[in-house]
Each structure stands twice: as C-alpha cells, then as structure tokens.
C-alpha cells in the first residue's frame, strides 16, 4: 500500500477537523474546539494510505506553521462558505504552502454548505476559478462531498506521480 502525507489547511473554524473526522471516523460534532498544533490521522483511499495532518488554522495572531507541511504530497485548502473572508484568505495560505513545499496537488473544500447563509460571492468565485482549482462545496455535517474531496486529491496526486 502506498503511503501519502496530505495536509488540511485553512483559516480557523472553517471545519478542517470536522471534515477530517467525518472522513476518517464518520463522526461530526457541532461543538467548536480549536486545534492546537497538529493532529495526525490515517485513512485509506483505494490502494493509498493517507496520513492526514490536520493543521491548526490560521488566525489573526498566528500564521500557519509551515514546518507541518514538509513532506506532504498534497493539500486540501478548506474555507467556510458562509464567511467570505476565509475564501479570500485561501490565496495567502496557498502562497505559504508553495513557498515551503512547492506547487503540490491541491483541491478546495468550501465547507458548511448545509448552512442557510452559505453563499460564495462572485468575487470569491472568480478568485477560485482563476486558480484552476477543483472546488467542492462540502458539508462535514451531512457528509456532502467529503469523500469526493479526498478521492479527487488522491487522483491528482497519483496522476502527477505517474
């Protein structure tokens, strides 16, 4: 079985841990508990064993610790669709990623698609489109597109390797 390290990155409280836990353990909690440092989990997608680094979110005081990214083969950029600032912030976070580990395979999860206020404004949508990223509207709560995000990333990573 091939092993791959991937990182979940994004602003704080966008649902990185929720998506990871939904994918790895099929659980979801409404309670918000901020991640400190990094939590490491493993999951299997086809022939690949993923080592998922759920990295603490960026906040106004602390940037993402790029040391956690070293050795990653791919990245899932996570934003909260009901907070447009977190969508706009993905470009800066991607800059941090590429500065440290180069342009690795990436997919975008616009999370909390189950919320009423979930709406991607035209400006944010244009920003994402310009990057040419694969973008998924996800919901860790009801599981929408959670598996699809990981599968897509694995597909891109395998494609790059071959």
């Amino acid at each position, binding site marked *: 079985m091939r*092993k791959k*390290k991937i990182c979940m990155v994004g602003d*704080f*409280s966008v649902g990185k841990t929720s998506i990871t836990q939904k994918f790895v353990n099929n659980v979801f909690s409404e309670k*918000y*508990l*901020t991640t*400190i*440092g*990094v*939590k*490491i989990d*493993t999951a299997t997608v086809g022939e690949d064993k993923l*080592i998922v680094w759920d990295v*603490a*979110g960026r*906040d*106004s*005081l602390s940037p993402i*610790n790029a*040391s*956690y990214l*070293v*050795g*990653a*083969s791919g990245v899932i950029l996570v934003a909260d669709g009901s*907070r447009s*600032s977190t969508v706009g912030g993905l470009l800066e976070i991607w800059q941090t990623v590429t500065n440290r580990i180069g342009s690795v395979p990436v997919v975008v999860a616009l999370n909390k698609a189950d919320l009423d*206020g979930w709406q991607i404004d035209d400006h944010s949508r244009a920003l994402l489109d310009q990057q040419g990223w694969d973008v998924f509207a996800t919901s860790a709560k009801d599981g929408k597109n959670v598996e699809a995000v990981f599968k897509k990333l694995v597909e891109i990573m395998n494609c790059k390797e071959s």
Partner: protein
Amino acid sequence: MLEANLQQRINAQLLDKLQLAYICVDSSMTVVEVSDNLSSYGYNDIVIGANVEECVDFMFGFDAQTQLDLPMVQSPSGITISVSLLPSDRLLTVLISNASNQADQRQLLQQKANENELLVERQEKLLTQLEQASEQLESKNEQLEEASRLQTSFLSGVSHEFRTPLTSIIGYTNLVEQSLQCPTDKTGSDIQQKADHLRAVQRSSRHLLSLVENLLDHGKLDSDEIMLRPKTTNLVELFQDVELLLKPLSDAKHIELTINLDIDDSTIVVIDDSRLRQCLINLLGNAVKFTDHGSVSLTADLSGDFLSIKVADTGPGISDEDLQKIRLPFWQAADTGKAGTGLGLTITERIIELMGGELEVSSVLSEGTQVSFQIPAPMLMDQECAKVLNSKQSLADMTVLLAEDDHDIAALMVVMMAERGVHLTHVENGALALEAMQSTTFDFVLMDIHMPVMTGYETLAALQQANNSTPVVIMSASTVEAGRMKAESLGCYDYLIKPVDVDDVIEIMNHVALDKDADHTC
C-alpha cells in the same frame, strides 16, 4: 561496566524527569536506538531495525537530513508532544518532549481568541444585515408613503368622478319628479325636456358603470383574472355605440368628435366586443377630457383580419417625462386640474396586450396626442355574416323564462324586452323555474344566481342532471371570475354582469336562434 550501567540509569532517570524521549535513525531511516520511555507517548511498536516511517506516522515524508521543529503534535497516547529532528553526520535524532501543559494553556487562550473573533465577525455580519434591512425598510417606507399618497389622490379622484355623474343623476331625476307632480304642462317641449333629462341620467349612469368596471378590472389585473370572451361582432355598430356614448361629452365641451371608419357596414368579426368597447371609451374619454379646444378623432380600418385604431386629439399634449409615467396605475398629471382615477390607460394597455396588440402613445406638447394599436379581428365569411345578421329577425317567436327574485329588476326586464318584441315569463327562484320548465318548453332562460329556495347554481346543476339543454344565461352582480367559471362548468350558455344591457341579451338570443337554425339545417 558498573559505571556504564550507572550512567545509563542516571540518563534514563534524567529523561523521565524531563519527560524527554528519543529515537535515533540512520541514513536509511532505520531505527538504531530508542529511549525506554517512548511507550509513555503511545509509541509501543518501535523496534530496533524497523523503518521509522512505517512505525511513527509523523516521521513519514522526512529524510535523515531533515532538521525541523514540530511543536505540539498530538501523540497516539493523546499527550501533546513537541518534536525536534536533529540530524548529525550519520544519525538523525528525533527528540520528543511533553508539551501538554503548553498546549493546554494555548488551547484555553486560542479557543477564547477564536471565539471572540467569530463573535466579532458575526456582529459585523449582523450589523451589515441590519443596515441592509434598515435601508430596505426605509425604501419600503418611501414606497408606502408614495402608495398612501397615490391612494389619497386616487380616493379623491374616485370621489370626484363619482360625484359628478351622481350630481347629474340626482339633479335630473329631481327635475323629472317635480314635473310629474305638476302635470299641467303637457306640451311637446316639456316632453322633449323630460326626454333630455332622462338621457342625461342614462349617460351619467353608463359613465358610473364604466368607472366601476375600471375599478374592478384594476383589481383583476394583478391576479391575471381578466379573460377575453370573443364573439361575433358588427364593428360598425360597435363604433356607432361608442360615438353615441361620447358625443354628449364632446358636445358639452364644444369640441368636434369624428369617427372615420374604413369598414363595411356588414362586416362581422370575432372579437371581445365589450373589452374593445371599454378600451375605446377609455381612450376617447381621455382624449375628450383633456382636450379643451379643437377636435378628437378616431380612425379605424380592417385589413387582413387585423383591426387598426388610432385616436388623435388636439389637446395640450404630454411631456416626454410624463410619457414615461402615464401607463402607471393611479398616475395622473399634477397640473391638469382634471379629475380621474388614473386607471383607464393602465387597464386599456393590459386589455390590448391580452388581445394581442400593443398600445403606442406619441405626443407633442401644445399640439396633441395620438394613441394607436392593432389587434387581430378575424372576419367571418359573407355567408356566415348573413346568418348572424338575418338571425335578428326571429326573436318574437322565442319563449323566454326569467328567474329573478328582485322585483324591480324583473319588472324592468319584462318591460324592456317587451319593447323589443320579446315576451318573458317571470318566476322568483330556481325551484319555480324548474317547475315552469317541466310544464312548458322554453327556448331561452335568463337566470339570477342569488335567489331564495334554489340558487342559480343549484338550478343549473339540476338541469344538467336532467339532461335539459335549454340555453341558460346567468345574470349576476358578482364580478368574481370564479363565479363565471362555476356557472360555465354547470353548463350555462353565457354569463352577464349586472346591470345587464338588454341589447346584450338580444344579441345572445340571436346567437341561440342562429345555433337552433344551424341544428335544424344539419
């Protein structure tokens, strides 16, 4: 040897005291040495000779030269650790320390900070929503104020519009009543004067009726309830009716009203005549109202199954700015001093659209205004026209039943129909109508809806059940479309709104006679 063991024990105690653990790997990432206390962090399966990437998840992806600090990594035991990768010439030492205290403190602070930031974000969002809601409220308030202003102006306009014909009706009926109380003067001029007064009453009543119709139609416009009911119509007669109705208004203002028709007298088209009449009265009525000098003309021609109509006046004209607003409901030019409801043009435009046309308005200030439209009006073939025209001869032979509980209306209908040579048998409710229809065969039934004992609907249902196909025409004061649809579903022949125009009844009877003839011919 003893010294080495002692040193080893001291080192182990020191590591435990400092909560430090370590793994040493060679250049191929093979484990060469581990501290005994690694299991306290949940790393139980690390054996000498194993590949560190296989047994320690956080080591995957690194090589022996990697120098890195990984603060606060959650270990398999749940304890948060800090990891330092320290490469040397031949070995990579992975130093693991307990960071749980630091992590707990950080957790408390970070959780609070993040929650506060989320709160601020939510507050900002709410404030934005509040501002938007406030703006919407303000705009809604302005709209309501404007609506209130329009309503006030509308009510005042309606009140004025109603008072004018009502004043005329009350005044002229008083005059007629007074003259009846002093029946000494029976000269021809007196009779002529009474006839003039009654004509004025009739004119005002018709005007009132058209006002009421416009008001009701406006309510229906929003709910798309206005429906067209095309029927065979003699266009020339229709235009003559309209001219007769408006002539007194134009004469009173000393302006010329001309109707120019390029249509053959015997031309019959299929069109909703009452809606077309309503549009023409609205357009010509507006033209006459706003023209104080000169003339108002209507030009109509029929070609290729399309009826083109143009109404032109020599009134004050409409400014470009006002031209944009004239189609809005309740809108009225501020400085004309002419009363009105501001609904006529709105309704006319909508009806013309329903008929498949488009109302065009052009105007030049101080010169006048032109409105025009073209609508489909399929012509009947000569043979069919002849049938429609000839059918008007045979009504005297028809037997007609009237079911109406209002004695005044019933008496009026009996008299007016008698004047046209038609004899009516009158009953007061649906049950009596059914009884009468059992003993006598009627060619035609006129029936009210709201009657005691048995309503019009119940009577229609009973007739339908008995397979009685006598044509029944409903006369109802209700303008609700659902009433018409219910009556039609129960098989009524036609549906007239009160006050019923006797000419409309005669026309329907002509159709009934025509249908009967056609059946006989077949």
